[in-house]
């Protein structure tokens, strides 16, 4: 395992460095904001003790919200991406900061404060010269644990489309690549440790005084120590703030999102390469946005994302929220609704149809002689059904399927798309939904059942683009049409298989395909 991690790091160091930098950026912005506002709040509630209890209660409450749901709550307000991640991280970082500041200041000996007041200090002088310096060791240890926690927590930021090392973890899970997941986690741990050590050094400096009694008394602290904390804080603020604002204004960059599944990683890379090659526009890919369609759609409407690969059936039912079965004869009507209601447009269909299917473990299928969905209905009460999270939520998903075939399963299990086949092979579930292009389908010990009542609609895959961008970038549409009808069902399944089972990089598989299809001119742009 260690070897494969090292190999991965050597091979893709640029990718990991980039993620590391993004991770630092997100967590440091959150840490900096929390230090400033948490510190101020801590000082204020120490000066006005009556406000302390309610304030701490509110912050405590926020702290208990699970991070996943916190991100979920925030998406409607701040959308997909770094902003939401930073807001969530800041909220979690506030509590340790406020509490340590408040504790540190409240624990300053009252007699010292009386002496300071009695000698004619103003309130601000007491705070600045007595309370804060004496509280500093407690505040520093608070900052230290808060910083490590924030860096670790930033790992989930990629769930909502923010950058950072979480991308490596999340992508590793979705493409069944354990080394990638491990490397991402390891780098987060290393980053947290390094920051902890650095802050530990700063903490020693702000300790009351590092010298032991009786030591040489001519110079109390090395002078750099006096300035260490302010300097470190200033650097963090400057670095984080500066890079954040400095990096935002960029030339027109296309923001490409993909759903968290192998196929979309491959398609995303194909689109990226083709767009750069045909239009020369820079493309920023946000791979594997957590929650898939629902969250990418919000990003598209807010203009955070400009394009992403989507499936027609999903567009009809989940995005446009139309009732009824989608067939390709409805495409023109759907295109019109997309343009009118969403300001989006379908540009280019790749050819393959990734529709749903259902499989049963082979021995169960043989035991009960199961061939169709209708056969399954009779034995469903003895079987457990597994699917990815959004299958249970979407209108064309689980409930509709059960209603159509009168299925009543013994139980259901929420699974990540990347872990489904593993769960089936380990017999944790008996039945599960699949996609017709699943790479692991070939290797699975399972029987695909026949959709005898034609429950499932058509799910042809194509690119959805914001119309605004199409108008601004006239070359874009032509670039996207390059993929028209180039990928068959079996070609897609084969590419998925290459990534998921043969452990090839999605990028490499995408490049191979483009090369074989004759779409690549010269070298691939990084």
């Amino acid at each position, binding site marked *: 395992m260690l070897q494969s991690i090292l190999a991965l790091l050597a091979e893709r160091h640029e990718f990991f460095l980039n993620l590391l930098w993004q991770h630092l950026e997100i967590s440091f912005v959150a840490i900096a904001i929390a230090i400033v506002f948490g510190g101020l709040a801590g000082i204020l509630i120490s000066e006005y003790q009556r406000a302390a209890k309610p304030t701490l209660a509110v912050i405590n409450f926020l702290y208990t919200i699970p991070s996943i749901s916190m991100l979920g709550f925030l998406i409607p307000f701040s959308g997909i991406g770094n902003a939401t991640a930073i807001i969530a991280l800041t909220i979690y970082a506030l509590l340790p900061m406020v509490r340590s500041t408040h504790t540190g200041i409240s624990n300053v*000996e009252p*007699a*010292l404060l*009386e*002496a*300071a*007041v*009695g*000698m*004619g*200090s*103003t309130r601000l*002088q007491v705070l600045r*010269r*007595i309370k804060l*310096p*004496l509280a500093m060791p407690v505040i520093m240890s608070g900052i230290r644990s808060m910083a490590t926690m924030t860096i670790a927590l930033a790992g989930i930021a990629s769930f909502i489309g923010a950058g950072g090392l979480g991308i490596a973890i999340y992508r590793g899970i979705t493409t069944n690549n354990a080394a990638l997941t491990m490397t991402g986690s390891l780098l987060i741990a290393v980053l947290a440790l390094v920051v902890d050590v650095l802050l530990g050094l700063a903490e020693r400096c702000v300790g*009351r*005084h590092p*010298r032991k*009694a*009786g030591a040489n*008394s*001519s*110079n*109390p602290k090395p002078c750099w120590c006096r300035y260490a904390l302010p300097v470190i804080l200033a650097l963090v603020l400057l670095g984080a703030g500066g890079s954040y604002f400095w990096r935002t204004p960029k030339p027109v960059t296309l923001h490409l999102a993909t759903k968290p599944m192998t196929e979309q990683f491959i398609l995303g890379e194909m689109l990226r390469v083709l767009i750069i090659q045909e239009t020369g526009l820079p493309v920023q890919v946000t791979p594997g946005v957590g929650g898939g369609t629902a969250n990418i759609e919000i990003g598209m409407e807010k203009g955070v994302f400009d394009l992403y690969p989507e499936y027609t059936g999903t567009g009809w039912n989940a995005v446009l929220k139309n009732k009824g079965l989608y067939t390709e004869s409805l495409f023109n009507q759907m295109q019109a609704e997309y343009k009118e209601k969403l300001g989006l447009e379908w540009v280019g269909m790749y050819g393959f149809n990734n529709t749903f299917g259902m499989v049963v473990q082979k021995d169960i299928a043989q035991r009960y002689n199961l061939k169709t969905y209708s056969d399954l209905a009779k034995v469903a009460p003895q079987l457990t059904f597994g699917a990815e999270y959004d299958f249970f939520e979407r209108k064309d998903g689980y409930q509709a399927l059960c209603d159509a075939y009168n299925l009543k399963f013994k139980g259901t299990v929420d699974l990540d798309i990347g872990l489904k086949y593993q769960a089936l092979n380990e017999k944790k579930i008996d039945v599960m939904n699949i996609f017709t292009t699943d790479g692991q389908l070939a290797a699975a010990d399972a029987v695909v059942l026949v959709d005898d009542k034609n429950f499932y609609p058509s799910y042809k895959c194509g690119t959805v683009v914001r119309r605004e961008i199409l108008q601004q970038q006239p070359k874009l549409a032509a670039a996207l049409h390059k993929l028209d009808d180039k990928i068959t069902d079996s070609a897609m399944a084969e590419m998925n298989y290459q990534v998921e089972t043969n452990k090839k990089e999605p990028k490499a598989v995408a490049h191979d395909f483009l090369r074989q299809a004759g779409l690549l001119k010269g070298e691939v742009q990084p």
Partner: protein
Amino acid sequence: MTTAIAYEHVQMAYGQKVIIPDFNLEIAKGEFVTVIGSSGCGKTTILKMVNGLVLPTAGRVLVEGQDIKQLDLINLRRNIGYAIQGSVLFPHMTVEENIAYVPTLLNGADHERTLRAVSKWMQIVGLDEEIRQRYPDELSGGQQQRVGIARALAASPDILLMDEPFGAVDALTRGQLQEELRRIYQQTGITVLFVTHDIHEALKLGTRVLVMDQGQVLQYGTPDEIVHRPAAAFVRQLVGKDDR
């Protein structure tokens, strides 16, 4: 002789509980007044009324003829030396920074002048220059008290308030500190209000002794008067115990 501190019908109550019913006293400039009484008699409260740490519920406290309610308390406090139980030095500041505390508040910009004042007061209270950069927990108990006195005097106040400053040191050191304090008092001619619960200390240091009980003045007089002409049974008992 002018009046340094005057209490006029001062009353102090916490809710229903009256600590000081009606307190009247005039302290002349240049007196060294020691205040003695059993604990809870209000002696510390009387002391803290001078620099406005405690404000009376009724009556007036006058410092140099001015009602302190009319004065800017921050300014008033900077011109009154204040040393409390156990001296309470700031643990995160060196000896120099501790002594320079009030001068820095007063004239933050003139660092040179502050450092000269620190040297002067360290010499007066008998502190060696070499401990200048030490922190309080690197000092002996006696040294800490001296720093405490130097800090209280560093801005050359006209009035010095001391609340059992020598309560926490051993008898030998206390004796030395008392001698130093008396010498400083004689050198500067400052008005001192000194709270203690030790009758020896009160009689030894004070030019006037104030005996208090239940928030009232039992006797205010020279040590000689207190010893030879006690005005109340409590005073007699206080000094009498001493004779046995």
